[in-house]
């Protein structure tokens, strides 16, 4: 039988899915054992037990100086920046993407502009943003927004353009104005793709968030990682990295769930 036609059973599929995770964990444990055997003071690859103890301490024991649980403060600050930045990008690109997709005049005006703007590396603009917006929250949020809005705008305008011509004509024969076509035909069919686009761009959004926090901040997940890097506190860094991964996964899963619940007509295509 050809390899392209061979499929694993259900149980085998679960084992196969778990395999890379197990391999990664095993590689880490082995590497950590080797280094700690050579030097018990080694900080580069702390033992899994050490990481677990650090994680429990970070999440439950308040910081002795401020009396606060720093990890929750960092999480809250970072998620807030992420939510506002991504939310702004989603709102801007939904309006702009629909306008570009629906209106030939705006398409001629903005399609090329957005294509060029999306080529600007957002991180290269970070110093400009710090100079213009200061070192506070605004510059971090704006970095996330301008980092992902061009991609989302292009994606959404393409999605609107991909709505079959037949539907657009049909709506007109039912008497729909441009506004009604936008609100009742294009918008509902674009929203699921907006959520899909946001899911795809969340990775980039996290990147911009952590980069901005690493450069100038006093609270946040990225700030903390780059702060404790000076002390080579790998146990804290790894705890934060795992925590960020868990958060990102949870957000992605939630968005997918919302998408499935809110757009049942999309069927299995989400």
């Amino acid at each position, binding site marked *: 039988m050809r390899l392209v036609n061979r499929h694993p059973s259900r149980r085998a599929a679960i084992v196969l899915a778990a395999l890379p995770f197990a391999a990664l964990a095993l590689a880490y444990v082995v590497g950590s054992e080797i280094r700690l055997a050579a030097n018990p003071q080694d900080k580069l690859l702390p033992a899994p037990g050490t990481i677990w103890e650090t994680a429990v301490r970070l999440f439950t024991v308040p910081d002795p100086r401020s009396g606060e649980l720093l990890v929750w403060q960092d999480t809250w600050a970072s998620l807030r920046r992420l939510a506002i930045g991504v939310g702004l990008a989603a709102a801007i690109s939904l309006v702009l993407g629909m306008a570009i997709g629906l209106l030939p005049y705006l398409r001629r005006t903005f399609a090329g502009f957005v294509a060029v703007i999306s080529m600007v590396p957002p991180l290269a603009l970070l110093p400009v943003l710090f100079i213009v917006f200061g070192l506070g929250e605004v510059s971090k949020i704006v970095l996330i927004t301008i980092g992902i809005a061009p991609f989302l705008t292009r994606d959404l305008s393409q999605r609107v353009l991909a709505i079959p011509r037949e539907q657009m004509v*049909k709506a007109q024969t039912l008497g729909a104005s441009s506004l009604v076509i936008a609100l009742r035909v294009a918008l509902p069919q674009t929203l699921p793709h907006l959520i899909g686009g946001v899911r795809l761009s969340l990775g980039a959004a996290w990147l911009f968030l952590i980069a901005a926090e690493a450069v100038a901040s006093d609270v946040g997940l990225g700030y903390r990682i780059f702060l404790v890097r000076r002390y080579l506190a790998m146990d804290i860094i790894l705890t934060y990295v795992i925590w960020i991964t868990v958060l990102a996964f949870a957000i992605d899963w939630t968005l997918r769930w919302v998408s499935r619940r809110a757009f*049942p007509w999309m069927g299995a295509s989400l």
Partner: protein
Amino acid sequence: MGVAPRLPVDGGVVVSFVRVRGLWQSYGGRPILERIDLDVAKGEFVSIVGASGCGKSTFLRLLLAEEMPSRGTIRIEDGPVAREPGRERGVVFQRYSVFPHLTVRANVVAAESFATRRGWLSRAGRQAARDRADALLERIGLAHVADAYPATLSGGMQQRLAIGQALTARPRILLLDEPFGALDPGTRLSMHDFVSELRAETGMTIFMVTHDLAEGFKLGDRVLVFDKPRWDPHEPEAFGATITYDFDARHGGIPYQIKEDDHAAIHA
């Protein structure tokens, strides 16, 4: 060349509901349709047949006012020339004719709500529109799937919904673009009955593009054949298509008029 178009006559008075005069269409200098004159009486069912690429779909798009002709006019009851699709002209395409994000009932209600300012009916109007939609769905045999989404419906059911939706907007002419082209033969036959019944009930003026000659003669009062009357073997794109035959399909399809006498000799 060219015989004066047949005018539907009623008691000595020319009755033309849809009037096409001197219609030409070309894309980038390449003629697609040329010299089309046509008069269609109210309530007539006109089938449009022809080989692929003969411009019959272009003609339907012109009737729909989805595109503008290079020359000539199309008027309904001597009204203004339409510049974009509107409620006067209902349409059912082969595919994508219903809105996938609306339930079956909402698709019918859309025929009323889309014409409002923002696309939504008032609270009072909504219930009445829903009741009317349910009555229509009962009539076209889709009441049991009123709350389902179109993707879960069979092809025949989707087309029945599309026709019901188009008729709900009360257009003056109904355009069908290969409406049964994607259906299996059995479903197609039952759709023929469905369309014939609805037509008897509403007296709608209908244009149907089809590549199925038998279907065209079965459903239509007239069958228009689109073809290229002039043919240059060295330059096949040099000339556009026009109506080469106009058959009366009510009496077993005996042609009462041939528009282009020289057609057969040139087109080898």
